[in-house]
């Protein structure tokens, strides 16, 4: 549905996007992740035809963005970062403007606007100037404009940014409801969102793709994947420390001292093996004073930090 081929964008001496290629098909919801300044927004701006790439090409439903820009743009619904809209207009006027510009007339226009309004639940504020609306409603106005023409490709730059938890949930549900019949790209800072709505996650850093896979595949790249935490009372702590360090299947052990106990985090050599079974057998045999034993929760943000070097200092600090 949408193909980005070797996109490069330079601003003077700065290379914001450095060779990004992605194909997103119908039914896919691609979560675009990366630290600030990684090139997410710039990539989206090229995908929607707002910025011209320095190199590379964009094809939307078979239309080349450079040679058939109007056909390509017609197939895209776009929510730019911060959901800009004409503040003095009401949501109704703004949607009419978008519908008109996209060639909707008469009854067709009315029904397109009505459908977008009901899907984004804007009815209550339809005739208030957009600039007087809350951030959540403003975002929904932008969303309504993006889905108005029922585009096969939907590109949204941080669709849930600044929304409260209920609004976030509503937007995610809306995205999920459209997921089957569209190719969707969303960018986000919120890693839990990837898990909640995306079928595929792409992490970019310094303008390059550093990871591309299902959310589960990305989780598996965490060094906490299948890691085990065991907390042992001070009486047996020294003994446990020496045994755990030499245990088969354990790659590395990190320790944290508490008042009456010591907490060990055991990283497996092979993340696919379930270390926790071995450990629980071991502590039962040794009859240590176990205060806690659990598998570490895999953290998406940890994967994110490991993969994105722009934030390398934080990742190193965590290992110490």
């Amino acid at each position, binding site marked *: 549905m949408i193909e980005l081929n070797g996109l490069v964008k330079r601003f003077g001496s700065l290379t914001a996007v450095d060779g990004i290629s992605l194909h997103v098909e119908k039914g896919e919801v691609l979560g675009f992740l990366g630290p600030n300044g990684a090139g997410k927004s710039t990539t989206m701006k090229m995908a929607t035809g707002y910025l011209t790439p320095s190199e590379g090409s964009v094809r939307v439903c078979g239309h080349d963005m450079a040679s058939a820009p*109007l056909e390509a*743009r017609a197939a895209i619904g776009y929510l730019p970062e911060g959901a800009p809209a004409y503040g003095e207009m009401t949501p109704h006027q703004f949607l009419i*403007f*978008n519908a008109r*510009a*996209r060639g909707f007339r008469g009854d067709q226009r009315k029904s397109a606007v009505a459908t977008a309004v009901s899907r984004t639940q804007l009815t209550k504020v339809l005739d208030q100037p957009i600039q007087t609306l809350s951030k959540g409603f403003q975002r929904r106005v932008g969303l309504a*404009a993006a889905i108005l023409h029922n585009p096969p490709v939907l590109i949204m730059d941080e669709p849930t940014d600044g929304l409260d938890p209920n609004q976030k949930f509503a937007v995610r549900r809306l995205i999920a409801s459209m997921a089957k019949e569209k190719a969707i790209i969303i960018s986000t800072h919120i890693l839990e969102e990837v898990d909640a709505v995306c079928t595929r996650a792409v992490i970019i850093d310094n303008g390059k793709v550093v990871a591309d896979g299902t959310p589960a595949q990305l989780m598996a790249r965490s060094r906490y994947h299948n890691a085990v935490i065991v907390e042992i009372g001070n009486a047996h702590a020294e003994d446990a420390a020496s045994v755990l360090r030499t245990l088969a299947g354990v790659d590395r052990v990190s320790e944290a001292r508490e008042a009456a106990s010591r907490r060990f985090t055991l990283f497996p050599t092979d993340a696919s093996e379930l270390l926790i079974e071995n450990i629980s057998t071991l502590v039962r045999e040794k009859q240590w004073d176990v205060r806690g034993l659990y598998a570490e929760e895999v953290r998406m943000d940890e994967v994110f930090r490991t993969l994105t070097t722009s934030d390398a200092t934080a990742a190193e600090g965590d290992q110490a």
Partner: protein
Amino acid sequence: MSGHLNGLRAVFLREFHGYFATPLAYVFIVIFLFTTGAFAFYIGNFFDAGRADLAVFFSFHPWLYLFFMPAIAMRLWAEEQKTGTLEILMTLPMGLMSAVLGKFLAAWLFAAIALGLTFPIWITVNVLGDPDNGVIVASYIGSFLMAGGYLAIGACLSAATSNQVIAFVTGVFVAFIFTVSGSALVLEFAAVVLPQTMVTTIAGMSFTTHFQAIMSGVIDLRDLVFFITLIAAWLGLNAILVDLKRVG
């Protein structure tokens, strides 16, 4: 082709309603009418001249447009850049010229409405005397074309910045150059430092000179071509400036 027209129509209607969505339009029209009247009656001594024509009234138009037209045009592109809506406009399936023309025509129609609302002074001269209404019609057409010229300059400079005040000030400055370039003062100075062909060119770029030619009652093709070419050139430059934003 229909894509272009849809876009032009949508942008035109949006911009035109935009003027009336805030008190701006009403404030502008009231001040414009008050100022045109005040200039004609007090500074131009409309009644004392003892002539049944509107030459005095029209002669102030270049100087009023110098400020009023950049004020109408300043928001056209600067505001879109400031609020980020340019990104919406430029990702809609319409050609760049649709947006440029749609905005310009909305501003031009608004200026035409303000100009049209000066009709009571036309009625007044007809009540008081027996003016040459052909000359007055020609003058109105000339004034409308000239307003378009100032607006095209203003629209273009609005695309060069995201700051409306800068758009206004540079708009007034460039408009001023096009207003005074035909005056004796400028031309005499230019004759000293520049070759004759350049002086003729500068004189030929003057709004005032071309407008005065039309005000004489004859709409010469050359004056028409001048204003239309000038509008087209500034709008072309306007489109180039907007398109450059795609490069980043």
